[in-house]
């Protein structure tokens, strides 16, 4: 018998309607949480910080309006209106106040906010002045750290202005024993404590906070049960009446107690997922290995004939809808860096069990199908691939990729498991990893990973080499010498390493200051009760309660750096075509385009010629991404300039730093603050994303790009790497298209790449390519029997292709 059932269950009409309703209005910022939280804090001034957090959390849950959206099967919403959000003034509030009037009109992630809400929030904010996590963090930072942040060498906005999030809790335990079970565990821990021990007061406060939080959650569920009964009472439609009564029954049992069936397990899962996002504003609260911890409930119900597969699919689809109902309102910079409202709730299927056996089951397929059915960006669906991953799961995943939704992202067990073990995880824990947020691996339920702790722009320290440490008239870096003083490439490269080392140390200081601030003002007892070994140790994850503790900052711009160093090496030190001083001038002149229109006018004809020559020489040089060892190995080496220093450092929770190499979408805004670079990149244009080649520079096709990327050391970047590829839909046509696609992934993973995701271009992208050919230089369109670089074709032929593209779907 087959180990799993791969039958496809189509979308129900209810799901279509739920999705349609969700997108009717612009998302709205609501003030309920902020008002209730502040109310509670005002009454608990003299109590321990952790207990104040718990009491405020419980107060919110006891009083925030509860709603049951029309027709939904799973209940619990962070906002009264779909896709709305609450605010979190305890982390920071000044940005929100400053952006009140532009929120609705900004280009990235606009939110509506009513005048009434603005007033209520402003009133609450008064209490928080001087009391936020953000203010404490900044006051803990060294002045030179703040200076580098002001000069955009790195940014830490993620955790400076909001909660940490970036965690997967032990969902399985809540499903099994409920919060009553966790309360009992906590009481047992209290009973075991020696009242005379030195840490008892803090521990006791934490335990009381856990119990208060869990009770608040149970109350919140019961409020939904009550509301469902009231609505059932009024409901004229018999079918819906029954559904409402079922919802009431579910909420009366979970998450207070263990789930008795798959439906209850879904509801219980949802409360955990949702309410962690009420406790704190941290995003990337990731469901992780949903197909694993949900499976026992599904399997039992199916075996006993209590549920049919179609209804199970509808429940999963319903959860997918709920995951899109949660949004996060970020400050303008944050919204640009994390564009798309997303809460980055990463959910992963497949892979291995802790014992190293293939973990694929029915739910792995049903999760992929749910993304087909709901067809929205959340959850960020991921798939683990190892040598033993069955091809039919790969085929199902490829079918989703082919739709152009950009999901799932593929992760390589064969790299990630040893990489995590090198950071101290046990073999069993490493095999049980999942992905957080974008690409960051951790063992769920045991880790406070602080993934995504900083974006570090690797191009900026190179600018500091050219300027001897100066930026806009201020000394920001080290004085590594005047640019004409470097006699060899190694001297030049060493100066870059010196600038990097210094800025990395400042970034560490920044992260540790913020970490400290969260452990003082941003404690999350509710989240902590679901992470081992907080209850055992009697402290929150913010204070080091988790088994595994990391901080994961990420570098980006590798491709620009590799190509830049190669340009300097060749043109200056090998071919002697220009001096470093001339190169500096060319960069300052932005290759003849000037840093603005005014500057462009003042460039002399002679300088213009120099710029033109240099640009031409650079363009003729080989670039990273074309499977050429001499550049690719430079990329490998320059990545170490970030990843190796980072791993030396320790964080306040007793853990270490580990580097990642990925940018989320920050490569665009942060590129906007970066001058011209020696790879020919113009000032203020985006830098390369993740470990991918620079846009348009990989001209030898997907296998060559994959080979180049695989030459980097993905093991040391254990906080994750990100590799994007673009495909035309015809590349995945038919059985052979899918086979070749799977072949590409498998070989990239054999060569020890860590992550790969695909954009299958659609008609809109081709239209965009027509308008912006420079962005799509590498876009190969493959039409039967012939291939062509799309942007090199004439307009009329491009039209032919665009029309064909539609036909291939």
């Amino acid at each position: 018998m087959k180990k799993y059932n791969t039958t496809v269950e189509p979308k129900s009409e209810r799901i279509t309607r739920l999705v349609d309703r969700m997108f009717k209005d612009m998302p709205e910022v609501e003030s309920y949480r902020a008002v209730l939280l502040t109310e509670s804090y005002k009454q608990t001034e003299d109590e321990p910080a952790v207990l104040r957090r718990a009491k405020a959390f419980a107060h919110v849950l006891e009083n925030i309006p509860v709603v049951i959206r029309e027709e939904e099967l799973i209940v619990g919403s962070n906002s009264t209106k779909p896709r709305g959000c609450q605010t979190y003034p305890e982390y920071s509030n000044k940005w929100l106040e400053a952006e009140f009037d532009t929120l609705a009109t900004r280009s990235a992630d606009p939110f509506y906010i009513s005048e009434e809400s603005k007033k209520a929030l402003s009133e609450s904010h008064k209490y928080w002045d001087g009391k936020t996590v953000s203010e404490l963090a900044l006051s803990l930072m060294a002045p030179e750290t703040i200076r580098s942040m002001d000069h955009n060498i790195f940014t830490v906005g993620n955790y400076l202005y909001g909660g940490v999030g970036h965690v997967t809790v032990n969902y399985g335990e809540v499903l099994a024993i409920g919060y009553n079970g966790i309360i009992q565990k906590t009481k047992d821990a209290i009973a075991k404590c020696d009242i005379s021990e030195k840490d008892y007061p803090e521990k006791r406060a934490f335990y009381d906070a856990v119990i208060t939080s869990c009770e608040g959650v149970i109350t919140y569920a019961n409020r939904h049960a009550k509301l469902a009964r009231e609505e059932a009472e009024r409901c004229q439609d018999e079918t819906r009446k029954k559904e409402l009564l079922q919802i009431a029954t579910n909420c009366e049992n979970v998450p207070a107690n263990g789930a008795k069936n798959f439906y209850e397990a879904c509801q219980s899962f949802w409360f955990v997922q949702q309410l962690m996002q009420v406790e704190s504003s941290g995003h990337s609260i990731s469901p992780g290995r949903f197909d694993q911890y949900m499976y026992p409930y599904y399997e039992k119900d199916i075996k006993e004939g209590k549920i049919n597969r179609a209804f199970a699919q509808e429940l999963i689809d319903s959860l997918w809808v709920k995951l899109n109902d949660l949004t996060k309102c970020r400050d303008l910079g944050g919204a640009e860096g994390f564009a798309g409202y997303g809460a980055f709730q990463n959910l992963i299927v497949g892979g291995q069990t802790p014992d190293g056996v293939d973990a694929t089951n029915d739910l792995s397929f049903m999760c992929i199908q749910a993304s087909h059915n709901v067809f929205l960006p959340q959850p960020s669906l991921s798939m683990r691939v190892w040598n033993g991953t069955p091809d039919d799961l790969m085929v199902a995943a490829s079918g989703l990729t082919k739709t152009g939704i950009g999901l799932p992202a593929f992760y390589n067990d064969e790299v990630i498991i040893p990489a995590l073990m090198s950071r101290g995880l046990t073999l069993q824990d490493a095999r049980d990893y999942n992905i957080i947020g974008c690409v960051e691996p951790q063992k769920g339920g045991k880790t406070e990973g602080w993934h995504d702790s900083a974006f570090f722009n690797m191009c900026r320290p190179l600018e500091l080499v050219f300027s001897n440490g100066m930026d806009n008239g201020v000394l920001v870096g080290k004085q590594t010498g005047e640019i004409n003083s470097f006699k060899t490439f190694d001297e030049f490269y060493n100066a870059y390493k010196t600038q990097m080392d210094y800025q990395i140390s400042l970034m560490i200081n920044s992260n540790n200051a913020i970490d400290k601030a969260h452990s003082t003002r941003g404690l999350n007892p509710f989240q902590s009760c679901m992470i081992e070994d907080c209850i055992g140790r009697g402290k929150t994850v913010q204070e080091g309660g988790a088994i595994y503790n990391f901080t994961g900052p990420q570098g980006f711009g590798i491709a620009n750096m590799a190509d830049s160093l190669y340009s300097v090496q060749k043109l200056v030190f090998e071919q002697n075509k220009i001096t470093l001083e001339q190169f500096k001038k060319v960069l300052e002149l932005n290759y003849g385009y000037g840093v603005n229109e005014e500057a462009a006018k003042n460039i002399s004809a002679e300088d213009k010629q120099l710029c033109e020559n240099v640009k031409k020489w650079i363009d003729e040089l080989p670039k990273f991404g074309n499977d050429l060892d001499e550049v690719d190995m430079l990329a490998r080496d320059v990545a170490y300039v970030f990843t190796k220093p980072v791993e030396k450092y320790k964080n306040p929770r007793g853990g270490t730093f580990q580097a990642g190499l990925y940018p989320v979408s920050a490569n665009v805004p942060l590129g906007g603050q970066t001058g011209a670079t020696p790879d020919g990149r113009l000032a203020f244009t985006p830098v390369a994303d993740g470990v991918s080649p620079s846009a348009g520079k990989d001209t030898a096709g997907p296998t060559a790009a994959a080979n180049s990327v695989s030459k980097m050391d993905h093991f040391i970047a254990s906080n994750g790497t990100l590799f994007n590829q673009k495909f035309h839909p015809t590349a995945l046509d038919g059985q052979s298209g899918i086979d070749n696609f799977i072949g590409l992934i498998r070989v990239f993973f054999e060569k020890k790449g860590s992550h790969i995701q695909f954009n299958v271009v659609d008609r809109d992208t081709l239209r965009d390519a027509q308008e912006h050919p420079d962005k799509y230089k590498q876009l190969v369109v493959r039409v039967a029997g012939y291939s062509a670089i799309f942007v090199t074709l004439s307009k009329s032929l491009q039209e032919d292709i665009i029309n064909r593209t539609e036909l291939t779907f």
Partner: protein
Amino acid sequence: MNGKVFDIQRYSIHDGRGIRTIVFLKGCTMSCRWCSNPESQSFETQEMIVNNQTRVVGKDMTVEEVMDIVEKDRAYYRRTKGGLTLSGGECLNQPEFSKALIMAAKQNGISTAIESMAAVKYDKIEAILPYLDQFLMDIKHIDSQKHKLYTGIGNELILENARKVAQSNMTELSIRIPVIPNFNDHPDEIKSIACFAKDIGNVSCIHLLPYHRLGQDKYDGLGRKYLMADILPPSSEKMKELKSIVEVTCDIECKIGG
């Protein structure tokens, strides 16, 4: 040994089985009106304007230089049953170089294919057959006169060679028919090719390749006139109709596209 190459394209997935690297050899004795690679026809290195920039087309390369590039995707070939494909131009017009490449690949365990019109003396073909896994042979028309009018040469040698390759049973033979409106897209014309394929036996697949205009810009770039500017690609309904004619006629697997 040197050969003249005008392009090497990795990750080709529509020309033979699996993920392949196609090596395009320069020079062809035919001059098909619809040719989408007109820069492939001359045996000499030449200049072509692409996007307002002059590009030199044609590079002398050694077998080792070509194989260094082909080797880079070996792992992908293994996973997908792909390999090396020689194309052109007409690769068999550089017979010694083609044979050396095919042998080098085979000896290194890489699967081999050629895309060819087979309009050369049979001994050139015979010489590579022992090392060749797949032969993708173009047959454009059964009527020699019409063939000559549109391609510059008659088809006698092609058809004779097709029969010999099929009878040798030394390689997997596929017939590829570029479907060109006003030239060979009448059902009877396609049918006669299908009959021929049935007659010679051992044909594993017939591919119908719909005409496309993607080479048009290159004619401008070479300063040549494109004679087929008014011809539109065949509709997908038309292609499906022709496919079913092939299937009914000869009971050989037929695919639209490579």
